[in-house]
């Protein structure tokens, strides 16, 4: 067994993804090769540290992009500026509020300098395919496919290795 395959099998064993038959064969191999114990221990320890750090149950959050930081910085600056004028704005809002209420009571549109007139289309809800369409291109789908392909490949290698081990055991008369 080469080192790459051994590492892959040890990694899968540590992640509980190895079948019981393969685990038995792997343990038998390690029994024959005590020099590989340190490698096995090191991989198990690494996986355990990773599991503790990640908490697989919880969604992993990526750190914010520098772009986001930049925007939040700008917003903070703008807010501090806005806060300075807060008391003035509040009194204006109260004034506008009273004016708008009076206008609504009269049932007449108020004169405004607004650039854009707000309107939201009342439409029936769509349970369309946006999520499905986006999911096809999502990094999660990519990772799922990657992991599935990797597992399939490992399984194939494992089966080949299993065949070799079985032949070895047969040759030794153990099976």
């Amino acid at each position: 067994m080469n080192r790459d395959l051994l590492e892959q099998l040890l990694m899968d064993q540590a992640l509980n993804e190895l079948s019981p038959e393969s685990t038995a064969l792997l343990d038998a191999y390690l029994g024959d090769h005590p020099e590989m114990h340190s490698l096995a221990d090191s991989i198990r320890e690494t996986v355990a540290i990773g599991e503790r750090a990640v908490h697989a149950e919880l969604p992993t959050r990526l750190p914010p992009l520098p772009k986001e930081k930049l925007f939040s910085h700008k917003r903070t600056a703008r807010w501090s500026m806005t806060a300075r004028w807060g008391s003035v704005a509040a009194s204006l809002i109260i004034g506008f509020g009273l004016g708008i209420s009076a206008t609504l009571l009269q049932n007449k549109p108020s004169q405004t300098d607004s650039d854009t007139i707000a309107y939201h289309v009342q439409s029936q809800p769509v349970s369309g395919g946006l999520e499905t369409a986006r999911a096809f291109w999502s990094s999660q789908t990519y990772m799922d496919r990657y992991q599935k392909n990797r597992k399939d490949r490992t399984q194939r290698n494992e089966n080949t290795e299993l065949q070799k081990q079985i032949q070895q055991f047969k040759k030794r008369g153990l099976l």
Partner: protein
Amino acid sequence: MNKKFIVISTIIAGVCLFLVGCHPKTITWSPDGQWAAFCNDYGLYFTDGQGEISSRMAEKAYRAEWFSDGKRLAIEQFVTLTSWQQVQNTVSEDYRDKFIQCAEGLLAVKNKRDWDEKTNMLEHMNFLDEDELDAVQLYIRDMASGGFPKDVIASWGDSIEFDYHFLRIGTWDGATFTMGEPLWGSPERIWDMRISAKGHVVAFTSAFPGDFDEGTSSSLWAADVETKEVVLLDKNSSLYPDWDAAGTRLFYVRSIGKESSDNPLGTLLSRQICGQDGNLLSDLPEPQSLAGLVAGEFTKVRCLPDGRIVFSSMEVTLPVIGKDIPEQKQLFVLDLQRQSTITRLIPRSEQSKTEGYSLDHFEISPDQKQISIPDDEGRVMVLTIATGEFVVLQAQKVGDIRTVPVWRYPDELCYIDELKGGLLGDKTRKEIMLRKVTPDGEWSDPRAISKDWSKEVRQVVLD
């Protein structure tokens, strides 16, 4: 998002849009090839294979599609409304409320001096399109003129017209045409209609008036002919969906972008719409994704009876630099019944022949052996699927295309050509042509069926 990705996306989206145009389908042959329906803004006519033309059967019928029974047709018909009273009596409550609310909003804006120009008014309402503004203007003119500058209203004139479009089902018995009640109405036109195999449901695409968050986008609908129920299935879908042979599943491309044109990536989706009895399902399941592709609004999908799906797209290997983006689109076929793979329909050696042709507007022959492809200026060629070879049926350009070529029979194509005429042979006239494949596999000489048509009829599809 990476800046390079944005640049490349923009280039691809731009190329996608550059490679397409708006090609109407104003002729459609009945499944048995006996009748063709011709329609345009002027009206709806029927003709047989010899060119015997009916009188005008309906006014302002813009699009038609036959049901498989060869008698019923899904028709897009519009009405032109010239007063607010007419608008109020015609449009749905949603649209009526929207127009009133927009008009009240405009009345509330102080500076109205430059509003003799529509675009200046639209700057205040980026959720309203130019056609819808006509209805808003009608409301202001007829109901609230006191709150608006008189000179601005006078500049609009008396000829404000607002078109409202309906989906209706009509019946043609060879002599008379009967139009049914409207199933759906909108200020937006219908782009494409596809009838399910059992004839119970019409799937169609249109624009969809959006709001600030989503913008105007394309929309995909399903109308149950029996129950009159109309369901909005999806938004930001490409304009040419299709049913599978059983008429239960709908295949279409959906952009992953916020608006149809702001992202060149899309996903080919399959969604069950009808049950085995052919009726619209009350609870629609989620769609399934089949393939990722470079897509645009005009990306066309057509299903073959054997389960394969043909679609237009662009062959791009990512990552890509601008210079490597192909100048031509390609046709692909996805085979779901075997190993789910996608193959190109046009061999690389033949692809240079498609230069200038609009691959988004292909039409598959009824026997699924050939595909017709038009270009923007009226040229027509046919691709044989089995060999990947092209035959140019019409090499000369005839100006703006008035209709995509359509198949009458598996071996007969209908398209528009320009023939020389006049005493000196120095005049040209567009004609509806039929061209057939002979038993030895060659294309026969084209036959004009519109030579004796009146000027009024010729306006429908030719002039």
